[in-house]
């Protein structure tokens, strides 16, 4: 089997897996799901590291470093923000009794 066909096979199978894994998701989780998927494509960081690490052209290194910064923001920020959202969905009942959170009322990131 030629290499191109191998790649095409992986691609097509991934499409099916991608559609399959999210096909039953309820709209409750659409926002975190979008944000989580968003974080996953930040793995382009890997490509940015590889191309930057293999060139000596000054301009190319500069462009590569910009790509690394952008991709890292995408990846790290995406996972952290998704976790922040999901944390609120999976809170434990007894840990926080009725009077939950700071009484300021402005809990939407207000504490930070």
């Amino acid at each position, binding site marked *: 089997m030629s290499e191109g066909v191998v790649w095409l096979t992986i691609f097509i199978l991934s499409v099916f897996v991608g559609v399959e894994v999210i096909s039953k998701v309820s709209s409750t989780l659409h926002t*975190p799901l979008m944000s989580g998927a968003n974080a996953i494509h930040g793995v382009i960081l890997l*490509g940015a590291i590889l191309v*930057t690490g293999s060139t000596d052209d000054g301009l190319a*290194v500069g462009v590569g470093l910009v790509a690394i*910064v952008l991709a890292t923001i995408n990846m790290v920020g*995406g996972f952290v923000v998704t976790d922040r959202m999901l944390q609120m969905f999976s809170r434990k009942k007894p840990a926080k009794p009725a009077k939950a959170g700071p009484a300021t009322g402005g809990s939407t990131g207000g504490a930070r």
Partner: protein
Amino acid sequence: MPTWVQLVYLLCAVGFILALKGLSGPKTARAGNLIGAAAATVACILPFLYVDNLRHLPLILGAIVLGTIGGVFGAQRVQMTQMPQMVALFNGVGGGAAALVAALELHELLAIVEGLPPGVDASIPGFDLAATAFTLFVGSVSFSGSLVTFAKLQELMTSRPVVFPGLPVAFALLIVAALVLSVMTVLEPSMLIAVVLLLVGLAFGLLLVLPVGGADVPIVISLLNAFTGLTVAAGGYVLSNTVLLVGGTLVGASGTFLTLLMAKAMGRSVTNIMFGALKGGSTLGGGEVSDRPVKSAGAEDVGILLAYADRVIIVPGYGLAVAQAQHTLRELVDVLLARGVRVDYAIHPVAGRMPGHMNVLLAEAQVPYEQLVEMDDINSEFKHTDVVLVVGANDVVNPAAKTTKTAPIYGMPILAADEARQVVFLKRSMRPGFAGIENELLFEPTTTLLFGDAKDSLGKVLKTVESL
């Protein structure tokens, strides 16, 4: 690439599949996200372990540290109400990174060909070049398009559709230019053509998103998210890297699917959302304030109405979150429940600024799950309901979605608040909602308006109910 590295890459790819699978259910979502983060981290550490003589190490590590600080800082600081624009921003920088990586790949391929001794066959595989051209264009579309969606949601610019004469022509010209430049990249690759293609992509992204208005913007974010995924997959093909290929394809496929699901929840087609304004302003709302008479009441009246009802349904909207009134609302509901009133929250799938956004906002206010009822389950209950309390929502209860063919939200399934015996709107002013259209329900004889800041109003209503 050593075999063990390929195997670890495979594991990381499986990690991404598990991450998406986990994110599809509330119980497994957090674990899934953590698995995804771990897989991405491992995948990005690998090059440092197996690539001989990886150059510019200190600079690369410095850039990673800088990006990590930026990402964590942004992610920790963002308010839950601003989540859609944050996702847009992260997606944009990801798309930009993919486009830059593609430019560098091309640069490297050209350098290799140039370095070959004369006489040796020096052609770059056409498919690699096509994938590179694709990433250059789509990555930059995603970058500039996402920045516009960010600006719209952050209200740095109008959230209404921006259309100008000649837009369709400019649109068509850019598509033709992109096709020609892509073909040229395959036949006669050069960095100059690559840069022009990148610029065309940036312009195209702007023109693609500018005509999209208000409530449709989140759908576009989801679509651009899928675009970025596909560019990462194309990058994986050129770099022969399975994690990029599988990860990117997963996001591309699931993102496209999610976009279709959301469009369905809004009763619209994706093409209508993207190009509706080009065809004659179908995402264009009036945005005007009416001076027709409405019935308004004081907080005491609303308090009494609620306290002596048997059945109350609350329709929360984005305005609730902006006023930071979630906690006061939860307190009010607790008091009503203690009085024996049956209270539920009716959650429209696209309440807020993004599908599922309202669930995130209410989860933050620690509203118990069991009280949140999805639209399809609660719609038949409205006709048996004494009072519907609409807090900061508008479009999701607007009967125009059923009755007015020309309305931008026509066809969107709505909450049947109009069937209840009484409707109380908590509103700041008569300004129309996000979709920019007037709500006929406001003028019905059964409807009462309580003007003011939602947190303030709810506080007063709460006091009244407590004193009864």
